């Protein structure tokens, strides 16, 4: 299989076999140790595939092994204290070490807005849309304090002949 990614100007990308399509149903995830990349989590969220490098930008935990969950949103009413609403069920992965929440579909941390795990596009089929990895903005936390590494790479995923391939 040959995959090119013109958006990145890369022609050397190669597929890495993940698993059979049937093995990664909605709501499920697999973790793969990918040569040259490291640990990557591949998620099926409502039939769409997402791949995140499984390194939390906070302290390097294997982020993608954390709970797949939803999150809360505040509802501010006219009277009384704000209420809590459960939203985005199945679209959030919570780091197993310190509980930071990340949006599986974008790689962005839900807190701080300065934090993002690098995300890899998942591509369905040989003619799927690759897309470019999303880069994280580099924003200082405070006077002179450097940002911790805040990015995990994202990869396309290709489904071909009943098998999922990670394109690295």
């Amino acid at each position, binding site marked *: 299989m040959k995959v090119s990614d013109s958006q990145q100007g890369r022609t050397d990308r190669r597929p890495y076999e993940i698993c059979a399509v049937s093995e990664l149903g909605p709501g499920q995830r697999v973790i793969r140790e990918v040569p040259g990349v490291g640990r990557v989590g591949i998620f099926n969220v409502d039939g769409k595939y997402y791949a995140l490098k499984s390194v939390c930008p906070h302290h390097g935990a294997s982020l993608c092994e954390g709970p797949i969950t939803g999150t*809360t949103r505040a509802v*501010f009413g006219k009277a009384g*204290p704000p209420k809590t609403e459960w939203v985005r069920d199945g679209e959030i992965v919570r780091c197993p070490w310190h509980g*930071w*929440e990340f949006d599986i579909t974008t790689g962005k*941390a839900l807190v701080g807005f300065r934090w993002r795990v690098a995300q890899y596009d998942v591509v369905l089929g040989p003619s799927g849309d690759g897309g470019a990895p999303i880069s994280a903005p580099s924003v200082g936390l405070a006077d002179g304090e450097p940002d911790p590494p805040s990015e995990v790479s994202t990869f396309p995923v290709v489904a071909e002949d009943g098998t999922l391939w990670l394109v690295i």
Partner: protein
Amino acid sequence: MNVPIVDALAHPMPTSMAEFASYLPRQLASRFHRFTPPFNMGPVAPPVDEAAAWTATEGGLAGSDPLAYLRFMDETGIDQAVLAPVSRGLVPDVRAAAYIAAAINDWLAEKWLDVAPGRFYGSIRLSAREPALALAELERWAGDERFAQVVVTQEAVAPYGQEQYFPIWEAIAAHGLPVMVVSDRARESLTPVQTSFGTPPQFLQYSTFLPYGGVAHLGSLIAEGIFERLPTLKFVFADGGFADAVTLLWRMTMDWRGDRAQVPWVLKSPMDYLGTNARFVVHAADGPLDPARFDKLVSLCGARDWLLFGTRFPYWDSLVPSDIGPKVPVEHSPGFFRGNALDTYPRLVTGE
């Protein structure tokens, strides 16, 4: 000091307990001898002969002469002062607490605020224990432009972010007034004040940990989302500890990154409410003595826009502008002596 200075924290005193008692309702005043005086006289300028000359007042308690304070202002370049009378801290009887607050407001309005209009600004003391009583007292004064803020005591039965207090903050915000939290330093009195580590038995201990009470209220206000519900509301913390606030809110920010889902109404990093919604009055004991290092601390804390100058007149730990000026250079923190206060207290009339 070339800029006209705003003193964000002066503590006027009554000339005597009898003077103050005359503002209380009879049912309270007549029982005065039976319990702790409602006005804290404890740690003011002890002993008097060691206090600076400007705190001494002929025939009365230190800090009880408006003209003496005006002279001090003129001598030190202070143009305007926000007067925040101390009270008795957490008064167990909520009705008595409301009477005492009302008496302080009546007394301040009559004895101080007309002495120097446009230079003296008052504080509406409220007891936050009972919101209905607090709201009634607020409405009695909020339209009086001589008052620039509301003051509540730091001593409380529950942290100020909790829902029981919200109607008070909501009404204050609607009037466009800031709220100052000040310890009444009543912790050495007969009424023990509980902390998470028990009751500090001496002045030394409670004075040391005073800033933490203010920061605990601030953490509560942030974590309960009060500043998202009332984005224009500003709290001023009068007992120092600006660097302690940064340290503790940094800690809160760290935990919030993992626990955000518990408090989804905290829409930004807890640190980021400093300045927009929280201001601190500098304390003589804040930070290192060396001016260069103190200035560095202010810079590290990002406090240039939310640190206010206040004298704490006439307390023993008061500051005069020339004490603190070298530590907070005007060229680095142009708002410290004036601009930050004007931003905090919109009722101060500047003529500019």
